[in-house]
C-alpha cells in the first residue's frame, strides 16, 4: 500500500467531488473523483484503492452494485456509502454486504474525514487530520 491513502470518490453530483476531493487531499489522500459510476468501476478494475466513497442513488449503476463490485475485486478496500435517502433498511443492507460505514447526507467534510481516518486505521495506515484546518461551507 502506498504511503498516501488512495481514495476513489463516486457521486453523480459534480459538486461532491469538487468539494470533497481537495478536503481529502489536505489530509494526505490521493483522490480520484468520478461522476460516472461505469467509468469508476473500470478504474477500480485497473487499480486497487484503499478507500472507495460512493453515493448510492446514481441512475443506471447504484452504490450497492459498486459495493458488490469492490468487495469481489478487492476485499481489503474499505467502502463508505453516502446517501441523501438514508433509511434503516438501506443502512443495514449496506453493512450486511460489507460496507465499512454508512453516512447520511448532508454531512460535513470534517465528518467524512473522520470516517476516512478510521478506515485508514483499520488498514494499518493513518491520515493527517490536523492538516484539514477549518473551512466554512463545508456541508455536502
Amino acid at each position: 500500500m502506498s504511503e498516501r491513502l488512495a481514495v476513489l470518490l463516486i457521486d453523480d453530483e459534480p459538486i461532491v467531488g469538487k468539494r470533497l476531493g481537495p478536503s481529502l487531499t489536505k489530509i494526505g489522500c490521493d483522490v480520484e473523483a468520478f461522476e460516472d459510476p461505469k467509468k469508476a468501476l473500470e478504474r477500480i478494475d485497473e487499480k486497487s484503492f484503499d478507500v472507495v466513497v460512493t453515493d448510492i442513488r446514481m441512475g443506471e449503476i447504484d452504490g450497492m452494485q459498486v459495493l458488490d463490485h469492490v468487495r469481489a475485486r478487492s476485499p481489503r478496500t474499505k467502502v463508505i456509502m453516502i446517501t441523501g435517502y438514508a433509511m434503516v433498511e438501506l443502512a443495514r443492507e449496506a453493512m450486511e454486504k460489507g460496507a465499512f460505514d454508512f453516512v447520511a447526507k448532508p454531512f460535513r467534510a470534517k465528518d467524512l474525514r473522520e470516517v476516512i481516518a478510521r478506515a485508514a486505521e483499520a488498514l494499518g495506515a493513518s491520515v493527517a487530520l490536523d492538516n484539514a484546518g477549518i473551512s466554512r461551507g463545508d456541508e455536502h
Partner: protein
Amino acid sequence: MKLSIIILSSDSVEMEKEIAQKTGSALGYDLLDRRLLSVVESRYEIPLDKLEWALEELASSRRQSVDLQRQALAYIQATTLEELLKDNLVCHGLGAHLYVLGVSHALRVRILAAPEELMEDMSTKKARDRVDRRRKLRQNWSLALYGLDETDPSQYDLVISLSQIDTEEAVKIITQTAGYRRFAPMTYSINCLRDAELASRVRARLWEQFPNVKVRAKGGTVVVETKGALRNKMKTAATIKEVVQPMEGVDYVEVHVMNKLFKKALPLSR
C-alpha cells in the same frame, strides 16, 4: 466502534429480566434497567414510585395524572437515551423499544413468555389468562403513550417464543443475531441516536414551562414546535431560545408557535 444496543421487551417481567441479564453476561455488555430510575429521580426530582408507576400503569383520565405521566416518561426517555450513547448495552424495563426507533444498530427483541413456565402454582388456563391480561394492559399503555403497540411482533427485529425455545437457547440466538453486521453501529445510526437524545433532552428541559412542545433535532439544529397565542409568539420564542441555545450539543434553535385557533405553524425568523 462500540455502542451496540440490544433492547428487550417481553410480556413477562421475570423473563425479560432473566434474558437481559444472561445476554449482557454472555456478551460482556452492561445492563441498563430500572436502576436508572434513581438517576432520573435525583435529576428531575420526581419520586421513584411515580416513575415506576409511569412505566407500568395508565393514568386516569384526570388531566393532572396524564400530564404527570407524560412528564415522567419524558424524563425517563431523556436519561435512557443519554446512557445508550455511552457503551455496549442490553436495555430493558425503560420503554426504550418504543422510542429508540430508526436506529439501525439497536437490535429490538420481543420475548414471548410461556405462561405454563411462569405460573407454577396455578392452572395453565389461569396462567394464560393472567399473561393475556397483562398483554392487553401493555398494549393499551403503549398505544396511549407512544402510539405504538408494544405487543405487535412487527415492531421488532427478532421475536422469540419461550414456548418452544428455552432461555439459554434464546440468549444464544440473541447474541448471535447481535453479531450480524447489519446491527453494527455506523456513522448514520450513531447520528440518529445523538439526534434522538438531543431532542429528548431539550424536551425534558422545556417541560416545566412548555409541557406540550414537540422537538426535533438534526446535527445540532433543534426545531421546537409549541402552542401559543399569536400575541405572545415573540416572547415565547425568545424564552425557549434562551433556555435551549446554551444546552450542550445545540448549534441552532428554531421555534414554531402554533396558533391554537388555526392550528397552523407560524415559523419565526432568526
